[in-house]
């Protein structure tokens, strides 16, 4: 919202105030100022001019010649503005004036010829003399300033504008106009706040019939009829204020309603009374199939929750949002009804968003305005019309239909409470002074205060003692509060098990094993799921996805990781990535949202992975992880059924810890690679971290060191492919269980000659607890190995 310091100056004396410092104070105590804009147009050689006559330009269709009355002289200028016509008052920049071209570059006007016609000076648009960005036509003024008056004598063109962040005002219904802002400034500056309205001379006539049929949605409706109005441009001072606050002047009546709205914060609406059937105004909910065409030309189909202003036959305004086209004030309007009302915030917000029209009006009514603002706005409007349209006449009584019961908000609070909440020893005296400066009424009883909240802050803003703490704090200045650490009790040490598991995994993967941690979205793309062959049902779907491509939450961590592989494989480098994150499984109430780990090894360079190198690397990764997690050792079991399309039926295994399946590892199913056009060979390791962290902690205990040396013995066994390493190892353990300490498979050899057999090499450590073993004994054992292996597995031992 744009706030003009000239406008503020109407209500609080800003003489001698350092505006930069003030804007800083305002940001710290009230609301954030995004930008301070200094308007400083060059006003030399600018004059009020009356266009006496308009002649066609002999050499150009779009240009015309304006003969301008400059008081004691007449001046001819060439002008292309569409709104040029005889009789209007405008601003003429004479030769020597500094004006801006369409790009904003300044240049000095010289006498010139435009298409062979002499033009001394120009009639200007607001943008050409730096008043606003408006360049739709030349400035149009009323006749209150005589032709020939130098602009610099008539008004001050300089202004300082604050652009206040609207979001920082959402909770302050009183700050949506200059009056409210000025009140805050007066309090910050300890200066007087001058805002007095006098009751206009209303008539006693009752030419209108007004009925509020929906008092809940419209707690106050006031109206007054004004006759003998002449529609014309508004005076220069008002146009300047509107320019400076980024509004476009329209005509005097519309500009007056805007001026009052930007002053009091309460929106107004003026109807042309000739378009109100039977002089009847009804405030009611919209009827079924009713429509309205608003001022912007849009037609809206209404529902019963929309509040409308209607006459005897039709809707004439969408209440609090926008007026209807059918009752708009136009140039021929001579009698108006001025509406100044209060509407229910929630209802306005819903209507505005339902019909996609957010206006200055709806933005204000949404904030729960003080119903008394409706009175202030009506009175201010009558005052300004009286001043600038002296021939006009208030031709009705003041209709004031109010369902508001004057409810005072009184908050009892103690000064100690305030001091405690702020953590500062601010005095009782200072507390009372600050509250009074903000228009609060105080009844003091020593420490105890009874604070009556002014009506404009009592609609929702200030209701509880904590709200008053904020008022004291912000005006006192939070900078004046000394930081202080709280004195607290000691806590038991605490560590969430899932966090510990995640951190251990992260350290092992990122630091130990060279993985890159990535994060992906909690959403998953629909076409990705389709390619993978997952159905979209049975997933958490969004009502309003950002894009149609991502309509559901991920149920598994795998698809997004495969997408990451696709994204990175063209860099032709081995990919080692993992993500720790939640997946989402529908359930009654809140979905189940387990924390998962998804680990990927992918190699874009590998032609084929028949040996399963990546698979056994992933196995290595998982073994390492579980050696850190204090949950006991890990086992891998083949041929477990998993219901995911990316599982490779032959190259996959369940990950078992403490007899529970906590995840799986698998080569990527080649059909998925084909469908997604993944070139790399990929292996996945997936773990359910919630499950793992819920398992009992297990710690490997110390083993006494052996007293006598052991002997390592290597055997290579040629054996059928279908017999697993594990089975062979079991058999080896059985040969001499008392002496066997360790068996390690250190080599696997396959070749075409071996056909469907292979060679497995084991290193066995034999050790006796009480003596040193001799080679003779080992030879004996070797014979036994040869025999047992042959009998139990059919394998033969080399050499």
């Amino acid at each position, binding site marked *: 919202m744009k706030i003009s310091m000239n406008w503020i100056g109407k209500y609080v004396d800003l003489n001698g105030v350092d505006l930069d410092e003030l804007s800083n104070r305002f940001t710290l105590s009230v609301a954030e100022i995004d930008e301070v804009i200094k308007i400083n147009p060059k006003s030399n050689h600018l004059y009020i001019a009356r266009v006496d006559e308009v002649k066609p330009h002999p050499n150009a269709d779009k240009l015309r010649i304006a003969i301008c009355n400059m008081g004691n002289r007449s001046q001819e200028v060439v002008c292309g503005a569409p709104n040029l016509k005889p009789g209007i008052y405008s601003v003429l920049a004479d030769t020597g004036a500094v004006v801006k071209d369409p790009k904003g570059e300044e240049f000095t006007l010289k006498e010139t010829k435009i298409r062979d016609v002499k033009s001394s000076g120009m009639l200007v648009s607001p943008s050409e003399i730096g008043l606003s960005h408006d360049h739709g036509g030349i400035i149009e003024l009323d006749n209150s300033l005589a032709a020939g008056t130098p602009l610099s004598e008539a008004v001050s063109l300089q202004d300082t504008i604050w652009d206040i962040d609207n979001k920082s005002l959402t909770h302050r219904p009183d700050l949506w106009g200059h009056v409210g802002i000025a009140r805050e400034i007066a309090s910050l500056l300890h200066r007087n706040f001058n805002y007095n309205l006098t009751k206009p001379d209303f008539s006693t006539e009752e030419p209108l019939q007004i009925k509020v049929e929906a008092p809940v949605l419209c707690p106050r409706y006031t109206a007054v009829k004004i006759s003998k109005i002449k529609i014309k441009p508004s005076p220069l001072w008002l146009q300047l204020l509107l320019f400076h606050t980024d509004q476009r002047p329209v005509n005097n009546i519309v500009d007056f309603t805007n001026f009052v709205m930007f002053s009091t914060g309460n929106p107004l609406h003026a109807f042309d009374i000739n378009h109100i059937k039977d002089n009847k105004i009804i405030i009611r909910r919209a009827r079924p199939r009713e429509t309205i065409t608003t001022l912007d030309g849009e037609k809206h189909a209404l529902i019963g929750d929309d509040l409308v202003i209607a006459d005897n036959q039709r809707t004439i305004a969408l209440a609090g949002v926008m007026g209807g086209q059918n009752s708009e004030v136009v140039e021929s309007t001579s009698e108006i009804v001025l509406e100044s009302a209060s509407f229910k915030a929630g209802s306005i917000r819903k209507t505005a968003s339902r019909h996609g029209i957010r206006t200055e009006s709806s933005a204000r009514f949404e904030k729960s305005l003080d119903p008394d603002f409706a009175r202030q706005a009506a009175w201010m409007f009558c005052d300004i019309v009286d001043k600038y349209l002296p021939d006009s006449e208030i031709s009705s009584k003041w209709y004031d239909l109010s369902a508001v019961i004057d409810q005072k908000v009184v908050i009892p609070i103690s000064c100690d409470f305030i001091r405690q909440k702020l953590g*500062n020893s601010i005095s009782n005296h200072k507390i009372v002074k600050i509250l009074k400066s903000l228009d609060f009424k105080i009844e003091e009883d020593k420490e105890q205060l009874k604070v009556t909240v002014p009506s404009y802050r009592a609609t929702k803003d200030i209701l509880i003692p904590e*709200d008053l703490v904020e008022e004291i704090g912000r005006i006192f200045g939070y900078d004046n509060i000394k930081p202080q650490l709280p004195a607290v009790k000691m806590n038991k040490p605490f560590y969430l098990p899932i966090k510990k598991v995640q951190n251990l995994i992260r350290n092992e993967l990122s630091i130990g094993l060279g993985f890159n941690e990535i994060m992906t979205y909690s959403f998953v793309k629909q076409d990705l799921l389709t390619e993978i062959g997952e159905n979209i049902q049975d997933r958490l779907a969004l009502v309003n996805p950002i894009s149609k491509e991502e309509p559901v939450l991920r149920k598994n961590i795998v698809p997004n990781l495969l997408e990451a592989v696709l994204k990175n494989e063209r860099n032709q480098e081995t990919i080692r990535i993992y993500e720790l994150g939640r997946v989402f499984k529908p359930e009654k109430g809140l979905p189940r949202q387990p924390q998962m780990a998804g680990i990927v090894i992918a190699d874009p360079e590998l032609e084929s992975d028949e040996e399963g190198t990546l698979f056994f*690397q992933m196995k290595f990764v998982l073994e390492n992880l579980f050696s850190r997690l204090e949950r006991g050792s890990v086992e891998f079991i083949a041929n477990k059924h998993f219901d995911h399309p990316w599982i490779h039926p032959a190259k996959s295994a369940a990950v078992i810890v403490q007899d529970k399946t906590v995840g799986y590892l698998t080569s990527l199913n080649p059909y998925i690679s084909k469908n997604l056009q993944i070139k790399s060979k990929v292996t996945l390791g997936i773990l359910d971290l919630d499950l793992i962290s819920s398992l009992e902690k297990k710690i490997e205990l110390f083993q006494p060191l052996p007293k006598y040396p052991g002997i390592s013995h290597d055997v290579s066994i040629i054996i059928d492919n279908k017999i697993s390493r594990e089975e062979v190892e079991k058999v080896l353990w059985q040969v001499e269980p008392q002496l066997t300490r360790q068996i390690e*498979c250190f080599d696997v050899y396959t070749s075409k000659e071996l056909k469907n057999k292979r060679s497995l090499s084991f290193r066995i450590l034999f050790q006796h607890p009480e003596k040193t073993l001799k080679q003779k004994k080992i030879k004996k054992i070797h014979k036994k190995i040869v025999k047992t292996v042959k009998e139990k597995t059919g394998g033969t031992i080399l050499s």
Partner: protein
Amino acid sequence: MLDKIKEIRKKALTELEKINSLEILRDFEVKFLGKKGEITILLKGMGQVPRENRKKVGQAVNGCKVEIQAKIKEKEEKIKEMIIEQDINRKDFDITLPSQPLPHKKGTIHPVVIIQNKVEAAFEQLGFKVLDYFEVEDDWHNFEGLNIPEEHPARDMQDTFWLKDGNLLRTHTSPGQLRAMHNYNPPLRAIFPGKVFRYEKTDASHEHTFHQVEGLMIDKNLSVANLIGIMKIFLEAIFERKVDVRLRPGFFPFVEPGFELDIKCMNCGGNGCRVCKYSGWVELLPCGLVHPNVIRAGGLDPDIWNGWAFGLGLTRLAMMKYKISHITHFLGGDLRFYRQFTEGGLK
């Protein structure tokens, strides 16, 4: 000529029938369609065909070529399918074979996690619990219980992803305030980091998913002075230097009074520069004293307990620290981004 075409076609089709590997298929393709392939030679020989027959013969050769090409493609698909079928049906893959160590490579931790770990470590030292809460929340925890009723304008500010089951993606980490108050007895001090979501189109500086950390302290008689005190020492721990902070009024329905906390611009030391938009201060985090309605919604008596809370954007902090220009990198999955952050770890 036509006979010859017929003969070559027949030969090709018979040979193709028997092919069962991609290598042999390549050889076959060269043999018939390569530079000196049998069909290619036929095509080259068209010049010698008498003019009156040329059209007919030409069509026949071309037809033959197109047919063989299609058959090769078909065969290729079949062989690939066969390879896949063999692969997934193989019985000789022994998962019990020993695991294989990975060659050495440099790993990295996600930049948001690097920052998050620092934040967690600092608060752990101050005796704060580190908690973890859901991304899918219900309306009550995300709005209602946080003093944001249905018609409250705050719901405008945080446009929300709604789920068809009536739940929503949390728009902030604040629902954790209510859950923490319900889960643990006061006095309580905790932080809870995590993903949050806003219904927003993405571009260089906007992202619908990002990371925040919420802080909450509940005790008797906590004050604004305490909040400033903790924030100051925490920020000094994170930035590893002296930090000047200031509070100004900020509106958040779940705190009263509510603040925006600014830090003195570290880029210019407060003199004004592009980073701080020449104000000398950078807006860092919203905070405030917990609203009595929220204390009540957390199951506690606001006449006994009060507290303060803050919400800090971890993604934003990472952007500030590493001067990252595009917010979409964080969840974009491009390794060239993640590999740049080599610090952190071992918490």
